[in-house]
């Protein structure tokens, strides 16, 4: 098997707060192959954004710290690198698109300047060349009148347009991996579809891998090839997208998929929307053992003691759950 583009091994990112240490990401393994779209799903607070930010070392380092783990990009560990060394990788090899297009662009510079500065910094282009490339990128992301709009300020664009600008900015140096952190969450539904489509187009053009973080299962179903499910700072399931939806293994994933409202069943069966009872555990003092145990209907006493490792189940890496390792339940 070819070497994965990005391999995160045992990543632990903790935050020191006045109430104690928050173990936001606690032993996460994720790998992305070249040109692959990996969906990372989970509810708010599960650690998916922190994982993404850890890859690019964008975590505020005084309260946050990468406590353990390796982040192997093309075989090279990024975890011990300084921010200056990371700067050479950011935008050029690994780029990121953020959730809030309304606040993610600097209001006092034109969008042209903000895209051009990446090009000038990483590809050493002259002002003129950078401007031309910028206009090209804007055209690629389907901003109308790019040669005029390149001199406009962010507040002169709508949310969807700004997100396109962000994508253009991220892809300007043809990175090999694009991390998209909830790129459509803050947008209207119709715009969401457009942006997802744009991402697919860009992918087929540039061939980059995408790490798509979202809490919407529908987005994942549409765009991802493989999916990683996170819960309370840990990965609890990993599977190709069809397998995940067809036969989810971990009780949490099952709960997630069952809680998606479905038009066909709603029309025929008068069933209540299934929700997962309970709340996410505190990451300050996470419970020992399986973190989902408190809400799991299959929970056994064993569950609160220890968690089995992510296992191969039927040829697919899957859930760390006692259900699949009966020897542990004994």
């Amino acid at each position, binding site marked *: 098997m070819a070497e994965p583009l990005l391999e995160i091994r045992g990543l632990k990112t903790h935050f020191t707060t006045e109430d104690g240490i928050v173990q936001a990401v606690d032993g996460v393994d994720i790998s992305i192959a070249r040109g692959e779209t990996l969906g990372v799903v989970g509810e708010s607070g599960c650690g998916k954004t922190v994982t993404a930010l850890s890859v690019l070392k964008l975590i505020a380092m005084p309260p946050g710290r990468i406590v353990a783990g390796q982040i192997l990009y093309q075989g090279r560990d990024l975890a011990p690198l300084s921010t200056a060394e990371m700067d050479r990788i950011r935008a050029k090899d690994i780029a990121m698109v953020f959730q809030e297009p309304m606040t993610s662009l600097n209001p006092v510079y034109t969008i042209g300047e903000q895209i051009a500065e990446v090009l000038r910094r990483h590809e050493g282009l002259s002002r003129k060349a950078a401007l031309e490339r910028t206009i090209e990128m804007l055209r690629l992301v389907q901003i109308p009148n790019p040669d005029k709009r390149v001199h406009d300020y962010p507040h002169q664009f709508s949310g969807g347009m700004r997100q396109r600008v962000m994508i253009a900015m991220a892809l300007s140096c043809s990175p090999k991996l694009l991390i998209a952190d909830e790129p459509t969450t803050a947008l209207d539904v119709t715009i969401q579809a457009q942006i997802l489509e744009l991402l697919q187009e860009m992918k087929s053009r540039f061939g980059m891998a995408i790490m798509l973080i979202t809490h919407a299962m529908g987005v994942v179903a549409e765009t991802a090839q493989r999916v990683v499910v996170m819960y309370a700072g840990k990965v609890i399931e990993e599977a190709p997208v069809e397998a995940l939806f067809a036969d989810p293994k971990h009780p949490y994933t099952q709960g997630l998929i069952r809680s998606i409202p479905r038009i066909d069943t709603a029309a025929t069966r008068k069933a209540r929307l299934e929700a997962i009872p309970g709340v996410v555990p505190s990451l*300050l*003092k996470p419970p020992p053992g399986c973190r989902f145990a408190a809400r799991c209907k299959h929970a056994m006493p064993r569950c609160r003691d220890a968690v089995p490792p992510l296992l191969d189940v039927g040829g697919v890496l899957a859930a760390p759950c006692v259900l699949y390792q009966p020897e542990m339940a004994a």
Partner: protein
Amino acid sequence: MVEPQRAARQFSPWLDAWRRFRRHRLAVASAVILVAMILSILFAPLVWKVAINDIDFTARMQTPSWQHPFGTDDLGQDLLARMLYGGRISLAVGLSAMVVALTVGTIIGAVAGMSRRWVGPALMWLTDLFLSLPALPLLLLVIYLFRDALKAAFGPEGGVFVMIVVVIGGLRWMPVARLVRAQFLSLREKEFVEAARALGASKVRQVVRHILPNALGPVIVAATIDVAAAIIAESTLSFLGLGFPPDIPTWGRILYDAKDYLDIAPHWALFPGAAIFLTVLSINFIGDGLRDALDPRRVM
């Protein structure tokens, strides 16, 4: 970023604020120093019974000694006694001016915040206007014009006291008004106020019971700063020779008298100057501590 869930524990906003205040070491130290100063200003005259205007030409401009712990001025008057007296005036002026500023500011801010028609913007325009007034020149102007009349009405000290307090307070209500209005605007649409309204609470009741308590935090901080500003304003006026009558030894006045004798009697100027500095510094630190306690903005 991840939000840590609060473990169940005693949660009282005031207790929390006190805990946060305690962590600001300079603020706590300042509070101790300020309380010590206030206590000595209030009670030391009961022990140190030297008069403030005991003229003694044989003891002119003496440096600190057992007889005169702070030394004497050019008329042989005891500086410690004069400083204690001046301290009382500074305190009185500071607190009174703060009360004036707070009252006027809260009323105007509340009215502006609760009004829905033209009253609000009109009051805000007035606030901006007052903010553009040059404070010290205006203060000097008022003193110049009204000094005699007020002296006639309230007596020399009382008149000047009233004038200084009213004018200083009258020029410092604007930040309070803005704060209060901002709080009102953001809180009056909040659910709990709507709930009160739905239960039939009158406007006044809404204001007093529901909105004001929430606006208290930043207002308390502003009030603290106001005391410091008032003390500085009064000292500045006295230093310019235009404050209280010359025989009243406010700290600024002592400095005014001392400034021409810097070379031969530096202690005369250093004591009042240091006193003003320490008082204002302590108040400022306390204000900072209060801001951390009541209006915490976490950096990390």
